[in-house]
């Protein structure tokens, strides 16, 4: 396992493509700091994982770097104020997501003073690692390479990670994107300081910095910055997708991370170069994650890299780059291989935005109509995962999902190399995305059905048991009444009255006990659901780049989602009713639970309130969170429906051709 690197040795992966780089345009000018926009819109969901919990309210004045929303659950990331100003709204707004649907955002109106909150670095070398990682939860730092996976999750909390090698991903293999390149050219020393922190936290003995050979200035700067350390810069050939974490690890170490394992399980951890810089700023200076470098390129007058505050409107960035040329049709977030069309030009810049490309028909010609697959297997030659894309296409097209899974569909990283080389111009990746979402939806449905069956069986058993218990109680009571009547007629009467009332409200001690059991069961269910959710996310997210993970989170077919949405609405209504019944008691934070679980919980709550048990304390934000979750579920379902329709459309158009 202790792989040692002999300098200069590169372990090639299968395939890969070398598209025109188009990086020179945006590297002519140094990184510029973007001016303050009129307002900042901060989506709560800028990372992979749970929506963070909002800690401010409309009207609050906040300072630069102040916590606006804190990480909720294990996989989540905090949001901070990128500048000082006033919170003007906490509401839905359009976010940079392929679905084009709105999500919860905090709107901040800058006061122009840019006043920092009191902040300072910490002596991380002499601080307990657990404390460091816990404090990292407050940093808002996520993977800035585009995957946006919360960084504190990647740094094992126990500080004994078993990681021997830290790989710094500075390959930046996608065309057009140059933010990491410029960052290394200009801030190599700070990057190396950040690497030292990551190395310290992981206890890694070896540090390898992988950079593609098309960035000579960055390579030189990094080599200079690491001069007096044991770190190594490894120059890798320019070949897309060498920046994919698994591909890069293979290039540098010759090690294939098993498909079902994370890098850390084989003693390797991969961090993007911008992420480690964020670590440096957080630990050495105390600055949370409030900005990033964004390449603004493509069809703009002056392509350039900017340091952009999160929440900055896209058009503010476009204007700073000299404005979009007249024939610009839309904007792409990410690179031309894995990026996506932004739904509107007024979306905010988020943590995932490494590059914005102004697109025109000149730059990206619309693809010609697809021809049939001629089985030339160029896609297989280009696939960096050694898949058989032509077979996967065939299976996806014929809805033969089981076969697609057998042929390792889920190992596909959606890099697009197959589509790039396809002579028939088949949108292969879209077929894979479609098949993946269909399979995931089917799996979820099956899981839900299993869960429902289990719960129903448990419920029937409980009803049976309660019936028996009640019968026994009746018998006992009858016995007691008999003896009491003999003792004291007066008290006996009272007792009878009391027992009558209590029977009506079902509040006998035994029943209260039952309710408690139900509550405990519900709590366990919730925990299970949450765990399920988070593990699923972990699995899908670590392995895949950002676009892949957002896609894979689409979780139900349109029809089912509609039903689920209705069920959720009913659940919400019930919960609200229950809340109204007992004011001051808000429903639980059930954001992570599935809709069916939510409904169940709502019912339990209602039952408990009837017995007069106060539900466990909950944050007032929970209600908003739940609504957000439901809205998000609907949004996801809609997006999925759109995707399915589009895939169908693509298929029909192909058939026609």
């Amino acid at each position: 396992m202790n792989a040692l690197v002999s300098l200069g040795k590169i372990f090639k992966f299968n395939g890969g493509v070398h598209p025109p780089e188009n990086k020179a345009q945006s590297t002519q000018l140094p990184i510029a700091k973007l001016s303050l926009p009129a307002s900042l819109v901060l989506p709560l969901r800028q990372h992979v994982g749970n929506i963070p919990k909002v800690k401010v309210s409309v009207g609050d004045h906040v300072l630069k770097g102040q916590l606006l929303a804190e990480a909720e659950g294990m996989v989540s990331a905090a949001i901070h104020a990128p500048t000082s100003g006033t919170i003007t709204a906490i509401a839905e707004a359009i976010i940079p997501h392929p679905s084009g649907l709105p999500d919860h955002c905090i709107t901040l109106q800058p006061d122009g003073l840019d006043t920092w909150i009191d902040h300072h670095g910490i002596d991380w070398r002499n601080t307990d690692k657990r404390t460091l990682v816990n404090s990292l939860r407050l940093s808002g730092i996520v993977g800035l390479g585009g995957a946006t996976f919360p960084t504190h999750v990647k740094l094992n909390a126990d500080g004994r990670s078993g990681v021997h090698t830290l790989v710094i991903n500075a390959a930046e293999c996608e065309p057009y994107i140059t933010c990491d390149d410029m960052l290394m050219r200009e801030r190599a020393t700070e990057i190396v300081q950040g690497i030292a922190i990551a190395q310290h936290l992981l206890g890694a003995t070896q540090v390898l910095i992988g950079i593609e050979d098309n960035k000579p200035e960055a390579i030189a700067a990094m080599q200079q910055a690491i001069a007096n350390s044991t770190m190594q810069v490894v120059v890798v050939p320019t070949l897309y997708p060498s920046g994919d974490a698994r591909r890069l690890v293979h290039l540098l170490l010759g090690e294939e991370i098993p498909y079902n394992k994370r890098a850390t399980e084989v003693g390797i951890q991969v961090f993007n170069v911008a992420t480690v810089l964020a670590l440096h700023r957080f630990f050495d200076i105390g600055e949370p994650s409030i900005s990033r470098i964004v390449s603004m390129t493509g069809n703009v007058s002056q392509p350039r890299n900017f340091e952009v505050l999160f929440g900055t409107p896209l058009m503010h960035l476009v204007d700073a780059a000299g404005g979009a040329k007249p024939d610009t049709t839309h904007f792409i977030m990410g690179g031309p291989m894995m990026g996506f069309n932004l739904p509107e030009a007024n979306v905010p810049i988020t943590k995932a935005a490494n590059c914005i490309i102004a697109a025109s028909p000149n730059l990206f010609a619309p693809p010609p109509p697809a021809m049939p697959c001629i089985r030339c297997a160029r896609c297989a030659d280009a696939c960096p995962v050694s898949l058989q894309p032509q077979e996967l296409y065939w299976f996806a097209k014929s809805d033969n999902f089981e076969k697609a899974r057998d042929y390792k569909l889920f190992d596909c990283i959606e890099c697009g190399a197959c589509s790039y080389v396809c002579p028939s111009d088949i949108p292969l990746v879209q077929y894979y995305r479609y098949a993946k979402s269909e399979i995931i939806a089917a799996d979820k449905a099956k899981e839900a059905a299993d869960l429902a069956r289990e719960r129903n069986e448990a419920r029937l058993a409980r009803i049976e048991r309660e019936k028996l218990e009640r019968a026994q109680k009746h018998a006992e009571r009858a016995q007691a009444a008999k003896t009491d009547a003999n003792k004291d007629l007066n008290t006996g009467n009272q007792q009878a009255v009391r027992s009558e009332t209590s029977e009506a409200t079902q509040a006998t001690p035994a029943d209260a006990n039952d309710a408690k059991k139900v509550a405990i069961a519900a709590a366990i269910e919730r925990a299970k659901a949450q765990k399920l959710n988070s593990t699923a996310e972990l699995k899908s997210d670590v392995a895949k780049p950002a676009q892949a993970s957002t896609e894979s989170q689409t979780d139900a077919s349109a029809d089912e989602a509609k039903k689920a949405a209705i069920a959720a609405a009913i659940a919400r209504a019930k919960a609200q009713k229950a809340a109204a019944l007992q004011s001051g008691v808000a429903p639980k934070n059930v954001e992570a639970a599935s809709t069916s679980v939510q409904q169940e919980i709502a019912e339990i709550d209602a039952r408990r309130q009837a017995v007069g048990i106060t539900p466990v304390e909950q944050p007032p934000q929970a209600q908003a969170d739940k609504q957000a979750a439901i809205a998000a579920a609907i949004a996801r379902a809609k997006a999925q429906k759109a995707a399915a329709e589009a895939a169908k459309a693509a298929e029909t158009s192909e058939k026609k051709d």
Partner: protein
Amino acid sequence: MIRSPYISDAPSVSTIMGKVLLALVPAIAVYVWMYGGGILITLTLATLTALLTEALMLQLRDRPVKPFLSDYSAVITAWLLALAIPPLTPWWLIVLGTAFAIIFAKQLYGGLGYNPFNPAMVGYAVLLISFPVLMTKWPAALQLAQTPLSFSEQWQFIFSGQLPQGVLIDAVTSATPLDYLKTQLKLEQDISVIQSAPLFGTLGGKGSEYVAVAYLLGGLYLWQQKIISWHLPTAFLGVLALFSAAFWLADAAHYASPVFHLFSGASMLCAFFIITDPVSGPTTPRGKLYFAGGVAIITYLIRVYGGYPDGVAFAVIFMNICVPLIDIYTQPRVFGHEK
């Protein structure tokens, strides 16, 4: 909706097919030089038939005609069939074969990309079985023929079946080297004696060996252009050479040399142009080796023990049947998975 990748860099299907046609041009030129211009007539007839039947079938199948006609795949089928059958045959033979190949072997299976069998080889097999006599009437190389036919005389023969006054069919045709070898071996002749006949050249048959070399050159061009991978031709020629070498080394008097097998019959055409058809062939690298090796072995067995002088068409069709199986069992190891 994610539509990435937004960029692509691939030759279109038309470009790929066009390069295959281009790679056949040297062989056609040598053919004309060795056998006269008659082949150009057959090629033209085949091309027209292919385009017409393809258009007709697309129309009947309610598919757009223009994009599929301009992918040149039908033209390739036509050319390969025309080059595979004897050039001095009545016009209707090539028309029938081409039409069958396009209609039955290609369009009825769903057109481009869906045919399990190599259409040209299906057309060839149908003609060989239906018209065995015509299919073995190969013209002699011009330098060998008693009375070499001019282009107009070949034209006349193809369309009317008329030979010039006083010329008999045997004067313009001859057995192919493979055919001659087979019949003479049955007469218990020694290989060395058989191959001293004027029919034989240095590598294979006189005249036809140059065509074979031209196929080889065209094939190398396709390899250089990354239209075909090395796997198929190398495995086919390698296994054919190995197999024939084994027999030849054991008994040189009764088995022809590997060089003869490589440069005779349809070996070179098969290695670079027939088995390299991506649609009806396997897609995995290992599968390509098995497929081509299988074609080579069957071809050799038919040549030596079968009822026909050459066996490429049947070997290819048989191996086409095996393609799904080959593909299933030769899946490459996926990144991060155990074997």
